[in-house]
């Protein structure tokens, strides 16, 4: 399940050994700071004032400072004591469809949380409008089911919020149950959620099966801050979080749901933050990562025996952490420059091939020269890079993925138009047929789909400027050469004495369609004039095709036939000079 991005592995890795776990330090950073006191105090103050409603959640907005807004979702008391009248079943939710990812194609939400959220829907859309206007810090918080609604509201807000908004919200929940089947591991949104869970609180893990042979569809997201009387630790590994929640729930079970006082827990943690603990440092640690994790798990009540009993493997976590070695901005930039370099090298290859009157498509297909082999290597780098970029976009929630890719779709399109012809060349060189259905890689399809979603039809002016520049442009349809290859195969089939009449008919239809297609491309200045180079596959096809028409269908005429026979193509693309 763990998706390790190839790009990270490929990037130049600076020496990272040994590795540390910041589980303890991140938790300490949070509790020792003044982030949580204020809203927490308010949270429970309001809760106490609540009279015994039937189970419901009330949002409450206030501004402790001019720069800070806090939204608290206050659950009614019976709601905290019996948080889940309807149990833990998940229902599909079209309202949160925007959370769909490749990993989770349909989103389901816990029924109780969703019902509460939807009952407030009108109120919340007003609140959303009001909050998106405001500048400054926004904290959204709640206890138990109040926290679930706070999470849903935060997601709802994130989806519609302007990306450029200076301050983003943070959602802090206290002892809230899991809410859905979606994870956010590959989304930036993941970092906006902080969930506090006491090791005495069974509510967060309530829906999880008590035995670890059973699996669950619930997925946690965000960072979990687990706390005990002795201290606290932060984790963001979903598998580990699920295990810890399940163990806590099963241990505290027995039906005794007593409300955990997070205010008191926090007060204690603040004291613990500046407390050395019972033992002093001995030797230095030879394996700091596992030492840190073990120490912190012990603090929150999971000693070695318990870890063993519940099959919690620290070695595996360490291996995962290593494989995900922090990707630095520096290596990112290096990689981006490398990609530019490979594109420049390909451009040169294209120019050289043009000088050889063959075009880079056919040069690569015939693979005569040493440089054709080197090109294969550049392609490899470029393909790996873009496959990763596409995958990364797919692992994000829909709306976020869309804005993520706008930043690079332009370069991605240039890449697709430059490199896909080479993949097509290799495919047909190796004897493949029907590239579109049998050979085309998913990432090209998506790059094209996204491009077409965003693209607008060209205006008159743009067409004129394309006409001027067409000699320097890349063929727009990156599958152009696949159609050419299919047309060649159709010609062969027509000439083949063994072909059945049906085959001939479909081949002829194919050729008629292809002719229309090519002409349309030419009229839109969407193909590079390089297709008309003497030794190109396109011209080879034309030769065969012309031959066939001349001998078999002498009176056939189409726009393409006229265009080519009149040698108009020799003018195509000349203007630019």
């Amino acid at each position: 399940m763990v998706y390790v991005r190839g790009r990270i592995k490929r990037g130049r890795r600076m020496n990272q050994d040994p590795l540390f776990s910041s589980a303890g330090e991140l938790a300490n950073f949070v509790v020792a700071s003044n982030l949580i006191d204020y809203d927490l105090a308010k949270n429970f103050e309001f809760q106490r004032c609540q009279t015994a409603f039937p189970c419901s959640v009330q949002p409450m907005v206030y501004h402790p400072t001019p720069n800070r807004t806090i939204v608290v979702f206050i659950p009614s008391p019976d709601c905290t004591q019996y948080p889940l009248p309807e149990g833990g079943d998940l229902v599909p939710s079209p309202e949160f469809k925007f959370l769909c990812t490749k990993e989770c194609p349909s989103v389901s939400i816990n029924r109780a949380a969703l019902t509460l959220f939807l009952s407030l829907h009108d109120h919340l859309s007003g609140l959303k409008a009001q909050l998106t206007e405001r500048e400054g810090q926004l904290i959204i918080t709640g206890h138990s089911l109040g926290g679930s609604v706070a999470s849903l509201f935060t997601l709802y807000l994130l989806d519609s919020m302007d990306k450029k908004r200076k301050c983003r919200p943070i959602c802090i929940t206290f002892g809230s149950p899991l809410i859905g089947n979606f994870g956010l591991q590959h989304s930036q949104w993941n970092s906006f959620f902080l969930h506090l869970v006491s090791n005495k609180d069974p509510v967060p893990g309530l829906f999880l099966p008590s035995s670890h042979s059973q699996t669950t569809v619930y997925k946690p997201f965000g960072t979990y801050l687990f706390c005990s009387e002795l201290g606290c630790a932060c984790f963001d590994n979903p598998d580990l979080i699920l295990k810890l929640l399940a163990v806590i729930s099963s241990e505290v079970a027995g039906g005794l749901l007593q409300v955990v006082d997070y205010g008191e827990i926090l007060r204690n943690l603040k004291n613990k933050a500046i407390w050395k603990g019972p033992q002093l440092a001995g030797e230095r640690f030879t394996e700091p990562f596992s030492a840190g994790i073990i120490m912190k798990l012990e603090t929150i009540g999971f000693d070695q025996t318990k870890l063993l009993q519940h099959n919690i493997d620290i070695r595996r976590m360490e291996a995962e952490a290593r494989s995900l070695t922090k990707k630095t901005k520096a290596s990112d930039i290096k990689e981006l420059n490398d990609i530019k370099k490979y594109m420049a090298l390909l451009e040169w290859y294209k120019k050289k091939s043009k000088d050889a009157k063959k075009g880079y498509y056919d040069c690569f297909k015939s693979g005569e020269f040493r440089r054709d082999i080197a090109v294969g290597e550049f392609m490899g780098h470029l393909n790996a890079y873009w496959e990763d970029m596409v995958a990364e976009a797919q692992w994000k929630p829909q709306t976020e993925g869309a804005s993520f890719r706008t930043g690079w779709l332009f370069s991605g399109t240039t890449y697709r138009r430059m490199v896909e012809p080479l993949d097509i060349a290799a495919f047909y060189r190796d004897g493949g047929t029907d590239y579109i259905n049998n050979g085309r890689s998913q990432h090209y399809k998506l790059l094209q789909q996204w491009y077409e979603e965003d693209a607008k039809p060209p205006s008159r002016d743009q067409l004129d400027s394309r006409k001027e520049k067409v000699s320097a442009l890349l063929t727009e349809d990156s599958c152009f050469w696949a159609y050419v290859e299919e047309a060649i195969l159709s010609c062969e089939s027509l000439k083949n004495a063994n072909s059945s009449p049906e085959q001939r008919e479909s081949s002829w239809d194919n050729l008629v369609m292809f002719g229309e297609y090519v002409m349309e491309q030419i009229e839109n200045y969407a193909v590079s004039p390089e297709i008309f180079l003497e030794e190109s596959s396109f011209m080879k096809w034309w030769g065969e095709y012309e031959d066939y028409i001349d001998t078999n269908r002498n009176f056939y005429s189409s726009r393409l036939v006229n265009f080519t026979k009149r040698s108009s193509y020799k003018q195509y693309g000349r203007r630019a000079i």
Partner: protein
Amino acid sequence: MGETVGNLIGLNDEVIHPAATLAVEAHNSPSKQFLVKRIKIRHDLSSVVVFAFSGSMLPKDWSGQPTFAKTEIATGEFRSLTSLNDGGDAVVNGSFLRRFKDVIGNLSKAKELKEATEKKRQVVFAGYSSGGPIAILATLYFLEKQTPSPRCLTFGSPLVGDRIFGHALRREGWSDYFTHFVMKYDIIPRIMLSPSSTEHEQILDYFKSKFDRKNINPAPPSGFYLTVMGNASSVASYEACRLMGCRNPSLDIIKSFIELSPYRPSGTYVFCTGNGNLVVVKNPNAVLQILVHCAELGESNTAEVEKRSLDEHSAYLSELKDCLGMQAVVSLDGGLATATLNDLGLSPQAMLCLQAAEEFENRRSRNLENFREYLEKVEVELEKMRKYKENAQICRLGYYDSFKLQNEEDDFLANVSRLELAGIWDEIKEMLKEFELPDDFEKKREIIDLGTKYRRLVEPLDIANFYRHSKDKETGAYVIGGGPRPKRYRFIQRWLEHDEKKSFGSRSESLFWADVEQLGIDIKKKGYLQEIEEKIQQVERNLIAWIGDRSLDDDVLLENSTFVKWWRDLPPQHKPESDRIEKLIGEKEKAAGV
């Protein structure tokens, strides 16, 4: 072991205790801005002159607006205290800076200082408590002026500057001149890690009455320890997360909701453990972790520790008397010694933080080592570029114009080299931003030279590429503050300017082509306006000066170059330096002809 503090910090042991005594005395003599004392060293009969500064416990002298009295310092007398890599200027506590400015006039004029300089005596600036920041700033002031390096000794001083402050000190190689003595629990060296609050005022009030009326024991405040150390602990944990390479992006989000103190330790720290041992630490990240973790609560109750945190601020003289000269000094920088850590009383979690701090420093050195191979690659690519430039001259065109035309294979290969080099320097730039390279990287002679060579040789090609694709239509001129000019060149130029102590923007010879191109475009668009006239003259003057000092290659003067063509097209009245430039062009022609 076997070393004394003096050995480790490069100052005679005999100076330290008298300096501390003078510092305490000066602190409690508000009527005088500073006290001076000459200390004779017994074994070589040399003298050290100590200046010690008075202090103030008034809250207004410790805090101010905006929060933490944050003030950017890098102007005039503190020009080095800045990041050369977009990190901004160093931030210091503005209240301390104000007090320093009150003192510096008289201090500069002090006859003892002149005498010390004349007789080549070592000068030491010392400060106790709030006298410490003044000593630190005074030392920096004279280091900037390049007077014979003064030393700085502080005792229980609050923190003065932020991360950039410490980075700049280490970059300039000044860090070793500063030594700070800190007692294990003393609250004052930690107080600036927490925002000013009523707790701050209680603490300062307490010390004020204690220092003012020496014999009366005022009632100590209580309840402050949790607030002050809680905030300090949050700062230390945040830094530990960064040292440990925390991958959780929530860290940055959470950080944006918390205002942490910007102040961080810099210089050498000497921790007095209270049992006669001294621990010397230079790694600034380790200092921060020790500062916070060794004052954590242990077995004793909070009230006890709280009282100790106040008492120890007055215990420097007795503590130092006992342990100076003794050999019970351990330096932590050679590795973490268990025995010493026990003296400091650190928890296992603190031990992990220290290991992370140590590892971070090691990683920076390793990164530098890894860069050797990178820098070799830069040399190789630059050599290719140099040959390309040489060959281009044969066509009497110059590589700038040849590259702009992109007709030959050589031009294309040069473009690949350009991209290759851009990748390497961009990576260096990002690593510097993340502090992943040693602090003095930007001060290293070989790096500045290599960078300058790269900038002068390759930036013209970036400019050629820019104007070849008429990118100015999309982004505006190449050289606009924060505009399209790649940041790597801006930084590399800054390294040189900083090194030569020149003003920002004075070493822009690599931008010659951009000026020429942009002027050509502007003249076409607007004609000969007054401002353009001035710019033409500036370009002429620059050309003469840069060709003169060889920072610009004379291939710009080739007959067919963009520059010569453009310049020839200017009407004569716009070319005041006509004769000199014609002469230069003529000389170049002759040389090229041969």
